[in-house]
């Protein structure tokens, strides 16, 4: 295993349910936690809706599946799971939503563990990280 004290920052922009980039980026964040790294996430623009508390799963009428059968994935559940995983593993996931982007979208009701911040937080995260990956929108 790599040095457990490494600090990585990920910068996310894409809104949920729109791009494969979200799943790929969250896989990287998950893998970083499993390495024992300290992980920072700065979410801005549509990405502030990734941990939005009121996301709801739905069935699929076209294929005749109810909510349980459809098992629709929800990013808020993935993020909740990663926050819990980080605690369990003694790692850290520090997720900050851009406050202006949150206000624009009425996305203030996020799951527990998500903080509100500003671009200054991103600057601080990047300054204190071993590396930073910007995941641009498609």
């Amino acid at each position, binding site marked *: 295993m*790599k*040095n457990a004290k*490494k600090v*990585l920052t990920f910068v996310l922009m894409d809104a949920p349910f729109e791009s*494969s*980039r979200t799943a*790929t980026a969250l*896989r*990287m964040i998950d*893998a*970083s936690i499993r*390495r024992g*790294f300290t992980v920072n996430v700065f979410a801005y623009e549509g990405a502030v809706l990734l941990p939005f508390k009121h996301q709801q799963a739905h069935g699929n009428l076209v294929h005749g599946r109810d909510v349980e059968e459809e098992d629709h994935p929800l990013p808020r559940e993935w993020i909740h799971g990663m926050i819990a995983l980080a605690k369990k593993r003694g790692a850290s996931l520090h997720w900050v939503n851009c406050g202006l982007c949150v206000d624009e979208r009425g996305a203030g009701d996020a799951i527990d563990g998500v903080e509100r911040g500003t671009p200054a937080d991103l600057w601080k995260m990047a300054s204190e990280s*071993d*590396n930073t*990956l*910007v*995941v*641009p929108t*498609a």
Partner: protein
Amino acid sequence: MRELLIIETRDAGDHKDPERVAALAAGMRRAGITTTIFLAENGAFNSRGNGLAAAISEGVQVAVDRFALDERAIDQSQLTTGISVADIELVVDRLADGACVMWR
């Protein structure tokens, strides 16, 4: 810069830019920089055919995301010679080691 990792997520059949990324990677390699292209998402389609052969011959390392292959039912027997299969941890470890990582 001592090492460059480029994450290519686009299918060369849909976009021109993966060709330019391959040329960039080859140029960086010629400049003496260890360079890897990681094919993720629809970039996994570029693991077939000859689009990356020139870059590989220049010494660029190319790996394709196992998850992306599985999602697209691309059999590993179809991969271009010189392209390896890797997991997402490749990116995480390169980040931790201080590589410059570009997402395309």
